[in-house]
């Protein structure tokens, strides 16, 4: 339970503090390490509403990336299923054509035999 909170809280805390960091980093020779970090994390842990809000604020970004990849790749799925149905249809059409030819030949043979038998 605790590790779950830690896993969601930590990235949120890092992001939140990262937002806040540029405000304080006037001289950015070395990356600024916030002295308020532990306090931040503790506060987030204490205030679940704030944590949830921060998490929600991040959400659209995650979804946007994923959504973009998904949308870009939908065409492959369409291609694949299209090809699958296409191949099956071609096969069935070929079978049907062969069946028709077979029926026609059988007819022809039957006619020839009956004609010859009549003579």
């Amino acid at each position, binding site marked *: 339970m605790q590790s779950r909170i830690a896993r969601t809280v930590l990235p949120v805390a890092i992001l939140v503090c990262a937002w806040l960091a540029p405000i304080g980093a006037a001289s950015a020779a070395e990356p600024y390490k916030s002295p308020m970090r532990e306090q931040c994390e503790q506060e987030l842990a204490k205030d679940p509403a704030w944590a949830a809000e921060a998490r929600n604020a991040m959400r659209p970004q995650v979804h946007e990336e994923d959504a973009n990849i998904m949308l870009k790749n939908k065409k492959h799925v369409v291609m*694949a299923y299209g090809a699958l149905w296409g191949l099956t249809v071609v096969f069935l059409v070929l079978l049907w054509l062969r069946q028709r030819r077979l029926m026609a030949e059988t007819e022809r043979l039957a006619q020839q035999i009956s004609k010859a038998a009549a003579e």
Partner: protein
Amino acid sequence: MKRAIYLAAAAACIAGFAGTLYLIFYVTPIDRLLLFNQKIFYYHIGAAWMLLVAVLTCGVASLLYLLKRQSRHDDVARAAGELSVLFGAIVLVTGSIWGKAAWDVWWDWEARLTISLLLWMTMVAYMLVRKYGGPGSERMAAALGVFGAINVPLVYFSVSIWRTLHPQTSVVPGLRGSMRVGMWSCVALFGVFYVLMLIPRIQAARNERRLTELREQALDAGIIQ
């Protein structure tokens, strides 16, 4: 009675296609790694299993034909051979498209793709022998069918070992929950589809053969020219 069963099975198959498509696109979750493209996987796996089943059917039927010389085994072998070419084409095309989506290349000498290609080419060779072999081509094709079926595990083994000397590029996700249901229902669906295609194809092969025999008889009897 048989016809009724067949029609019922065909209806079930159509319902199955609709059902599995619903399962695939609405029920199964989106895969973490491959996202939406993983949906190709379900029918691809179904077709791959049926490719194997068709090749084995052809092999067994060919062996029976060689040993017993009964034409009905040859009919089964021919029908299974044709279906294996169809399923092989489906596996290769969908696999290639999946490869493009996942690894951005249309073809990769990955173990499974290579094995499928070799299996498909063996069955295409089978159909070529059937078509261009002239008299006695049934037996020749049967020999190829037997050799091809026995070759399947050897090809699988040698190509897999060959590929493990190269870095692995495929990541097959572990299946959980509804994904597993989706996959197995697709396999089952393709199984039913295979049998539904096999039976009329065997019938058609048998009719073709009877027609040729009848024509020979009529020619012998001098009834027709």
